[in-house]
């Protein structure tokens, strides 16, 4: 007798029973005791086929996943690479060999000239097994040093909401504002617009998405919010819409 005892999108807490029976699979943020599946975090239930998982609503910690694109800040220049803070509990390592195809000779070329402490990089996680520090690469297309723009930080658990289904949310923001937005899976977002005022408007919108991630009809509300504030001259002073 396999059955899921919660409804889709229901708000659940740690220890809450989600499903019974051996046929249901335990997805993310859940755990199994015997035949029963429980939630391990606060979040919303997500049932896909016979897998029950929980979309976490809280959590400040980013756990790297191989293949994730992240934004990191260089915190140290070593002898054969860079240490990068990617907002995870572990500093990531960006080895020399993953920076460019041209060989860089640490004896001849000064590493800080390539990347220095404080630089932002868009990188991809190529290895992480929880026993060693995550490894990064910036060799792929579109990766590399980031310049200009405004850095916004949100909880990594809210990143999927910011992107939306098939990018619906993030594409809407890009369309409405014409800004370039780079989203790292680790919750760091780089916003670069033509005007500084627009950047702060996007920041407020992103913060709003983070705060109201668990509500429905958010994309439409954010769109309305962006349109209303952009109509104001300059768009520099952002006015929070009153709730209700």
């Amino acid at each position, binding site marked *: 007798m396999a059955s899921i005892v919660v409804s889709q999108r229901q*708000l659940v807490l740690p220890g809450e029973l989600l499903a019974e029976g051996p046929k249901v699979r335990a997805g993310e943020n859940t755990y199994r005791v015997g035949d029963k599946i429980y939630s391990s975090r606060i979040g919303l239930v997500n049932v896909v086929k016979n897998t029950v998982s929980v979309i976490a609503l*809280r*959590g400040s910690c980013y756990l790297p996943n191989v293949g994730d694109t992240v934004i990191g800040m260089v915190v140290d220049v070593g002898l054969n690479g860079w240490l990068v803070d990617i907002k995870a509990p572990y500093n990531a390592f960006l080895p020399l060999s993953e920076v460019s195809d041209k060989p860089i000779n640490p004896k001849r070329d000064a590493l800080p000239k390539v990347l220095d402490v404080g630089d932002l990089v868009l990188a991809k996680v190529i290895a992480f097994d929880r*026993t060693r520090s995550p490894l990064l690469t910036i060799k792929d297309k579109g990766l590399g040093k980031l310049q200009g723009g405004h850095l916004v930080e949100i909880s990594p658990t809210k990143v999927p909401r910011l992107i939306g289904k098939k990018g619906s949310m993030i594409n809407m923001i890009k369309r409405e504002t014409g800004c370039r937005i780079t989203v790292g899976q680790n919750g760091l977002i780089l916003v670069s617009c033509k005007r500084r005022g627009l950047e702060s408007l996007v920041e407020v919108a992103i913060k709003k998405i983070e705060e109201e991630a668990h509500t429905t009809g958010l994309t439409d509300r954010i769109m309305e919010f962006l349109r209303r504030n952009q109509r104001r001259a300059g768009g520099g002073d952002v006015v929070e819409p009153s709730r209700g």
Partner: protein
Amino acid sequence: MSRAEDKKVIRLISEDGLRVDGRRPDELRPIKLEVGVLEKADGSAYVEYGRTKIMAAVFGPREIHPRHLAISEKAVIRCRYHMAPFSTEQRKSPAPSRREIELSKVIREALEPAVFTEYYPRTSIDIFIEVLQSDGGTRCAGITAASLALADAGIPMKDLVASVAVGKVDGVVVADLCDVEDKYGEADMPVALMPKFGEITLLQMDGNLSQSEFEQALQLAVESCQTIYGKQREALLNRFVQVEV
């Protein structure tokens, strides 16, 4: 408290079977739970058991400092239970006392079974419990608050932990002792429980109970923890429902 001492005669249970603060033996003090009260912490909670007031904050999982404390297969939970200098009648020195260090350990061990520490190797989860006002049962209120703060921080947990003290005063088994009952009663027994699975994570006893009294007290503790568990769930759910409106 000093009033009771002045009178010299302490009646912890009145003729009509009520306790010093007018409660029935199995009645809890008014409980207030609030989640997400601190902005800087990853998770936080504020708890009141009557006049006992406690704030708990959780940070992490984060990089552990000093590094040598890291455990390669799981996260380290560090807990600090601390009483504010203004929490008691006589000023308490803010330096951690022997009792506070012991309670920090006891609380950590009461929470550890509920947390999936193996998900975050080489990191630390730091719990800070600050007693703002003390009127008995602070370790239990501390555990209740800390487990809410852990859940609020989004740390994967098996279940919430609810905790309450039971004991015996004037020969009667009572729940949720206040300071006077703790001091002048015959027994005090703090219990912490993971209510979904009925697993006890803390059981201490101070004083004397017969076997049947112990069983009665434990039963009462389990029931009281279930009540508190309901309120914990409500407090956590409230945090999110509010935004939705």
